[in-house]
């Protein structure tokens, strides 16, 4: 297997299974992630889309070691995940959370929240820490006087800037952004997205951008991974996915997203049914019960990712 220098993060056949134990009942297995393969290059943004329950947040947790993986290998800068020491690990990969109201400690001042990664992972003196925090606050667009305020003084957009500043304190190479703008008002979303774009150029960051909002993903990503019920269904460049989606789920997802500038007035495609329970997955393709193009073969076995028209897609019917 070749690992080029540009690949910061490489994920090989990653599985995550949760065991659900109930008294006097057999233990159930929930496959939150099944056979995930992808890589992240330097300075690029990989968008991850999918609906609730597709495993995108589990993936973020496994990648940041908040959850242990069940199977598979993850390589960060050529080193295996298990061989990296905690301090080194946290200085390479950091995360920004969805809800800026719940991911900041309400009892700590902004200065202390942002300084936390330095306190935990480095031996930098308090004075120097303060200077570093102030410099970072300036970078993310927070004024000096905010340093001594508590999170409840901040608006949603400002809180998210705080979260971003905290994630950048150790100068990581990879930033995992789990729905970073979903909790924000529309006019604030653009401000935060612009900030993320600026920071990516300035710090040479690679982003793993998780979102359910397709227009945000389209704007921010270089390549895109589409997930459905714990599996990758399509994986390709932004233009491949958005201009010529091959998997029926990707097509329906793109079609369902409300737009202000829809070209054709035809709104006929409404996908039937809902997500099946992850505990009771269909034997074949997980999307088969809802898929308008399903055939008998789709019920029999799970389609694997194959290269079609230059991107990976997991569908028997896609050409």
């Amino acid at each position, binding site marked *: 297997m070749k690992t080029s220098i540009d690949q910061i993060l490489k994920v090989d056949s990653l599985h995550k299974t949760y065991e659900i134990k109930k008294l006097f009942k057999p233990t159930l297995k929930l496959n939150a992630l099944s056979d995930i393969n992808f890589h992240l290059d330097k300075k690029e943004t990989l968008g991850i889309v999918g609906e609730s329950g597709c495993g995108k947040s589990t993936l973020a947790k496994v990648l940041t070691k908040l959850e242990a993986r069940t199977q598979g290998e993850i390589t960060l800068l050529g080193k295996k995940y298990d061989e990296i020491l905690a301090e080194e690990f946290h200085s390479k990969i950091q995360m920004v959370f969805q809800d800026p109201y719940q991911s900041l400690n309400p009892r700590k001042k902004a200065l202390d929240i942002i300084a936390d990664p330095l306190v935990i992972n480095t031996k930098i003196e308090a004075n120097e820490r303060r200077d570093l925090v102030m410099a970072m606050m300036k970078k993310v667009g927070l004024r000096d006087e905010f340093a001594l305020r508590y999170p409840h003084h901040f608006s949603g957009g400002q809180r998210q800037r705080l979260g971003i500043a905290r994630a950048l304190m150790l100068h990581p190479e990879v930033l995992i952004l789990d729905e970073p703008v979903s909790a924000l*008002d529309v*006019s604030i979303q653009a401000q935060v*997205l612009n900030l993320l774009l600026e920071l990516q150029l300035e710090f040479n960051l690679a982003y793993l951008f998780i979102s359910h909002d397709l227009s*945000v993903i389209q704007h921010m990503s270089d390549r895109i991974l589409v997930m459905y019920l714990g599996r990758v269904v399509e994986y390709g460049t932004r233009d491949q996915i958005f201009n010529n989606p091959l998997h029926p789920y990707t097509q329906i997802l793109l079609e369902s997203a*409300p737009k*202000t500038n829809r070209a054709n007035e035809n*709104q006929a495609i409404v996908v039937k049914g809902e997500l099946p329970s992850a505990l009771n997955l269909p034997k074949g393709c997980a999307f088969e019960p809802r898929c308008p193009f399903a055939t008998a073969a789709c019920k029999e076995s799970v389609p694997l990712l194959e290269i079609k028209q230059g991107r990976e897609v997991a569908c028997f019917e896609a050409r």
Partner: protein
Amino acid sequence: MSDNLLDIKDLNIFFKSDKNPEPIHAVRDLSFSLKQGEMLGVVGESGSGKSITNLALMGILGDSAVITAKECKFNGHDLLNLKEKELQKIRGGEIAMIFQDPMTALNPFLTVEFQIVETILAHLNISKSEAKNRAIELLAQVGITSPKERLKSYPFELSGGMAQRVMIAMAISTGPKLLIADEPTTALDVTIQKQILTLIKSLQEKNNMSVILVTHDLGVVSEFSERVQVMYAGELVETGLTKDLIKNPHHPYTYGLLSSRPGAVERAPKSPLASIAGIVPAFHQRPVGCQFNPRCEAVQADCKIGNIKIDNGVRCLHPMKGALK
């Protein structure tokens, strides 16, 4: 006598509080009307007053609210001067409401059957078994498979989309003339969102029901409602036909909102988005003059004085001309 179902003129909502001697002015001089069978989209960010207006129409704002209006007519009734008994007939009967989070709107301790039948019995003079049959019909109508079995379910056994369908079934159980849908799909996935909105649209057309669809998503409004009004900081800033407003917004706020949406206009990927600077002012820090003036790029001296009247559907002294860029 107009043929409008709903006529609101100069609606003002204040909140008293012990801390501030000045009451908070949450909604300012709001006027709009709604025809029978029409869908009106209401767009605005948090703090714009869009939800408070709806709660005021339903009469569920609580004692700290002071509501004044020149006119607040619904189907011939003056909503602000009804006795509680009369209001109870209208609330849930002629005006129904569905909420953003269906999981918290349903009572977790009671079955779907109990909750729907309770609503029906409160408003219609029929027996309990008739009400149960009607509940089954309604669940089938909103697209729930095997409705009989679903009646026995508790809310936690339903998915978000199904819970919202149950809410809709409850809302239409009394044959309301007006359905207020407050962010009905914000908590749902896009494919389910489309199913629910299509369902609401079809019920609107079939039952000739009026709908107020509150959302923060301009995409939702432009696909589902013919008319739209945009609210900002307690004021109606722009109103008109959706297809015109989306293409030619005149108020700088509407313009900013539309152009800051990724994908609204042709733009190179990863290039900076147009954005509106600053944040929505807090209730006790509202500016004088145009509410948007501290964030507006085209602000001029006269924007900062006096009360700006809505003219030709736009509350702006220097409206923008030309299409969205």
